[in-house]
């Protein structure tokens, strides 16, 4: 187990360098004026230009300069120094304020996903081809197909503005209630996927040979489904949920933007709108790291759940 985690950790370090290098190269390689690229169409003041040149070591040129800058960027990233946004605020401070909100939102979305998605998925899997199964299949297909940019504003309009069941926007220091609707919207996609995954896994595992064995042991059906089938069915689902938690934290760009929730995604949303290059780069870098860590956690979780992986 320890060896497995160590190996995964090593792979993650490699993936970290690989991914950040790609992100970094995409952002900076072969540009005419990297500073202008960072700032987009906004005019850049001399002070900002000087700061960015120093910050990203843009005075060094060529491949050598690129790698120098890359490692400098990594060092800063690892030290938690993300630099300043174009508005002059420390990006680290912005994120420190944003993370708790984003995590709260992601946890609400995850809770909705697990409670509704997995439960309904198990039911649909057990009663395959029933009315319940067929209608959930169709419903999840619709949810999967409707983009968040449609779902979020319409939910906001109908449930928030029109019928006033929920606060339409969250504001500076959102409480649980004002995060509930965005949480449901954010979780709906993962919910639909989790439901489908659970359904397929349960339906498949119900036909597995070990279920026949469990029946021949004289176990009650509830126990066979609840312990034997569920344990095996949840392996792909938990894997998916782990990746999804990483996604939910970084992927709330639309939802946080629409509902005005001051989380990480909202800041990225605003940074894109205001063309604040350094802030976009800083947030994306951090999100990529979060994403990688989420993947590592998932792998370890996978090994805990599935003994066949553990001893490979």
């Amino acid at each position, binding site marked *: 187990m320890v060896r497995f985690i160590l190996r995964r950790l090593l792979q993650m370090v490699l993936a970290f360098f690989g991914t950040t290098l790609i992100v970094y190269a995409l952002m900076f390689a072969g540009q005419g004026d990297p500073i202008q690229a960072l700032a987009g169409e906004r005019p850049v003041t001399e002070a900002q230009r000087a700061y960015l040149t120093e910050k990203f070591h843009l005075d060094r040129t060529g491949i050598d300069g690129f790698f120098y800058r890359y490692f400098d960027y990594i060092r800063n990233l690892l030290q938690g120094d993300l630099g300043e946004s174009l508005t002059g605020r420390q990006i680290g401070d912005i994120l420190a304020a944003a993370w708790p909100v984003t995590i709260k939102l992601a946890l609400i979305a995850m809770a909705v996903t697990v409670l509704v998605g997995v439960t309904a998925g198990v039911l649909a899997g057990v009663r395959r081809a029933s009315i319940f199964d067929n209608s959930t299949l169709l419903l999840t297909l619709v949810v999967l197909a409707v983009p968040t940019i449609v779902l979020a504003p319409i939910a906001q309009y109908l449930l928030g503005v029109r019928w006033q069941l929920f606060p339409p926007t969250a504001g500076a220091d959102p409480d649980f209630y004002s995060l509930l609707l965005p949480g449901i919207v954010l979780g709906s996609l993962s919910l639909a996927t989790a439901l489908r995954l659970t359904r397929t896994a349960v339906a498949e595992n119900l036909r597995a040979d070990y279920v026949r064995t469990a029946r021949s042991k004289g176990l009650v059906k509830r*126990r066979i489904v609840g312990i034997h089938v569920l344990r095996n069915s949840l392996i792909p689902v938990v894997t998916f949920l782990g990746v999804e938690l990483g996604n939910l934290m970084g992927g709330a760009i639309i939802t946080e933007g629409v509902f005005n929730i001051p989380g990480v995604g909202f800041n990225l949303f605003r940074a894109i709108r205001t063309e604040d290059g350094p802030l976009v780069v800083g947030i994306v870098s951090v999100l990529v790291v979060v994403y990688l860590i989420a993947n590592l956690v998932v792998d370890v979780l996978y090994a805990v759940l599935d003994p066949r992986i553990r*001893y490979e």
Partner: protein
Amino acid sequence: MRGNRPTRGSERKAGAVSQSAVQPTPASPTPEGGHLLEVRDLHVEFRTGEGVAKVINGVSYHLDAGETLAVLGESGSGKSVTAQAIMGILDTPPAVIRSGQIRYQGRDLLAQSEEQRRQVRGTEIAMIFQDALSALNPTFPVGWQIGETLRQRAGMSRGDARRRAIELMELVKIPAAASRLGDYPHQFSGGMRQRVMIAMALALNPKVLIADEPTTALDVTVQAQIMDLLSDLRRDLRMAMILITHDLGVVAGVADRIAVMYAGRIVEHADVRSLYKTPAHPYTKGLLESIPRLDFHGQQLSTIRGLPPNLMRIPSGCPFHPRCPYVQQVCVDVVPHDLVLGDGRTSACHFAQEVRDDRAR
């Protein structure tokens, strides 16, 4: 019966009448005077989108306390389905039990509620399966899986179940049992896994053990060990055993009686010695002749020509007739009765006597 050519619709009925007319021959008596376990005229269908497959067409056999019955047949002959019907673990749908009885200690299991049947599983009748790797749950340690039966069914505490699980694993001769309790199925070798499976089946001291192709997935050397183990355990624990197999070689040293199945029917039923010596059904004869023998030098190994029947379109008359070297017009027209040949032997062949006496072939 001549000229009464059965149509597809009446075929099953005709077979049912003829088979139920045969009275089971008396064997060692059980408390109630009947058999410990008895299958009577069982009919099972599988209904799928493509049609109805008649998987079991009037199977009857019995098992007495302490004896071993081997059920022999190729895959698709319905031997496993019969066993699963006895256990009550057929998947319904697609399986439908059309008619018949399965009597255990005089009570008809098919008339019982699901809850009553569940109580029988494991405590009275237990079953082991062909592929232990897929039959064991991959995500729980084997000790847990053996203990689960004890905790759930016998109400044992965690500690007691653990101790008993070790005893059971020692009983099936798993070395260093205590230290292997926490291992997962995939960490065992094939033979050891099958032993775990057996230990699990024995947990509640069943009176009947159904072994569904217990050695098919194993290496030849391991096969013998598992068969020996099963045979010893059956004797020591005074169980009765139904051994399901397609391998005539496995049966010889272990079974008391053999029932040969073909296309969802029992075509021949005899004690082991007579069946090997004088098979009374062309199918059995064909099976025996297709076994390689050390004392038959230089002879070509014979095979049964043709393919097993499509169970959605079982041939008219005797279902074996398209493959039978003895085939006559009557075989195409008339479903054969079980012919009683004495010594408790039956054969569902119009020419059973001729086949039995025809040693030259």
